[in-house]
């Protein structure tokens, strides 16, 4: 570097000094390369959002027994498995879905690890109940257990939003459950298997009010287990959830 370069002084509205031009030829490509590397590193470092799928490409129909309480669930005629039922957006199912009976439903499928959900077509005839019945809320005859996991809304978690869990998703999951989407607990077992539990209040109705302060956070939760078709239910009392 000669003396002229050493004393070079940059003024924005004057021609760029040679020393600064040379420096910029190093700074700018280096800076852009560093930014690109950071972008790639951040992109690859994002956690796996899981295998949830939301098939909006095909409207489907299901028939089965609609169980209205605690949250509308369709017991599929073809294989006896349980499908949760919700509306579009962050809304629980329409009023008509709170009537039990044999039903025909039309909508889109959400699925994660075999757990399925129907997002109803907004058309009025997407839900037809042919033989309304009265079904009492389910009971909790099972053993008392203490589980550790995260409470989230079933719709985002099953594929509507990926990832549909974690702290960043807390506000969304809270809004979903306030709107009537069923709250669900996932538990990672030591074997690596992940189990899901639909959370229900002790009277067999919605547990939304109990779980709302704890959504999207690591929690301990104490309750009684039960089954509805292939769906695991967890009945909890007020005060059953604690932050970890």
């Amino acid at each position, binding site marked *: 570097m000669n003396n002229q370069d050493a004393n070079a*002084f940059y003024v*924005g509205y004057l021609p760029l000094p040679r020393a600064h031009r040379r420096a910029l030829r190093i700074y700018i490509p280096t800076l*852009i390369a560093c930014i690109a590397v950071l*972008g790639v590193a951040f*992109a690859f470092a994002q956690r796996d959002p899981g295998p949830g799928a939301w098939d909006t490409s095909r409207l489907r129909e299901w028939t089965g027994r609609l169980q209205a309480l605690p949250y509308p669930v369709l017991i599929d005629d073809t294989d006896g498995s349980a499908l949760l039922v919700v509306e579009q957006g962050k809304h629980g199912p329409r009023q008509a879905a709170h009537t039990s009976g044999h039903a025909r439903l039309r909508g889109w499928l959400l699925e994660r690890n075999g757990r399925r959900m129907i997002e109803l077509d907004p058309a009025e005839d997407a839900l037809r109940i042919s033989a309304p019945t009265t079904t009492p809320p389910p009971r909790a005859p099972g053993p008392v257990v203490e589980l550790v996991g995260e409470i989230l809304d079933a719709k985002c978690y099953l594929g509507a939003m990926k990832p549909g869990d974690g702290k960043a998703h807390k506000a969304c999951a*809270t809004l979903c459950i*306030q709107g009537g989407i069923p709250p669900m607990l996932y538990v990672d077992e030591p074997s690596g298997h992940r189990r899901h539990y639909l959370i229900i209040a002790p009277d067999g109705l919605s547990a939304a009010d109990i779980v709302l302060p704890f959504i999207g*956070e690591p929690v301990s939760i104490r309750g009684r287990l039960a089954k509805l078709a292939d769906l695991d239910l967890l009945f909890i009392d007020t005060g059953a959830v604690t*932050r970890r």
Partner: protein
Amino acid sequence: MTSNYKLVQWNRHKKVYDIVLLGAVLGYLLTFFIATTIAHPTPRDISIPVVAIRALATLAFILLHIILCIGPLARLTNRPAPLLYNRRHLGVTFFVVAFAHAALATAYYGGFGVRNPMAATLDGYHSFASISGFPFEVLGLLALIIFFVMAATSHDFWLANLSPRLWKSLHMLVYLAYGLVVLHVGFGALQSERSPIFAIALLLGVLTVATLHIVAGLKERRPGRRAAQPTTNWLDVGSIDEIQDNAAKVVCLKDRERIAVFKYDGKVSAVSNVCAHQNGPLGEGRIVNGCITCPWHGYQYLPEKGQSPPPYTETIPTYNVRLEGKRILINPHPNPPGTPVTPAIIEATAL
């Protein structure tokens, strides 16, 4: 300099700067999308709005660190000065990116439901008493409000009407906003993600910003920049041999006032070290075309008058100066901005 106000006083450097900046922003967003698609293919793909929210968030994080590092880097060496010159465009670009991140996150996570999206995002049964339940969104919103005030007042119109001192104080809030961003990331993304890369990036970012500011601050406080104690009304601030031609020595008074002592054309003049534009360090500038020239944005002042050359109107305080042999003596009491002062003439025998 400001004889009138234009939205942007364009010149070739600003155009090149903005083209490179826009290319880098779009390039980053595209790179993040492509890399995410490769890293997380279907069926374990990430929702596109979430990818967009994250691309904008990480870009804003990077831009904020570049903005905060350019200043102290330019104090250590003049070479990054071209990056500093148009930093306000970088700042406004950062705000647009950060705002897009916030707007998209609020619409996606807070929308489509039974509540107002803003209310749903900010009042989601948070707990200020727990780390896992702390509302990181509130921290981000507070930072965004500060960045908005800064972006909205970045134009020279506001600089002149708010006064440089108030404007500078307002824009120092960037450090409060930066702290809020660090906490926003710490209570939000770091609790959602599992890879240590995000925590390492945050830590390195904070360390880099802090280290550069400390080193630049230490450089300013080095002993050579301090004045001798006054014996009379005059301060002995050193020898003319310490100052290069067309450059200055910065003298720090006891009350932290700084004086820039320039040597040029066989003369010595002293002015305030603080540029009337954005409080830039005039003493780190040069004499260009007979004018003291600020290293930040090229604002100019006639050294003997403390005034910008006509038609420009900026003024800075001047100081009375005289020589005793090679020693430079300065009256530490500043003259009102724009007061003409006779420069001290360097006798041939003193050279």
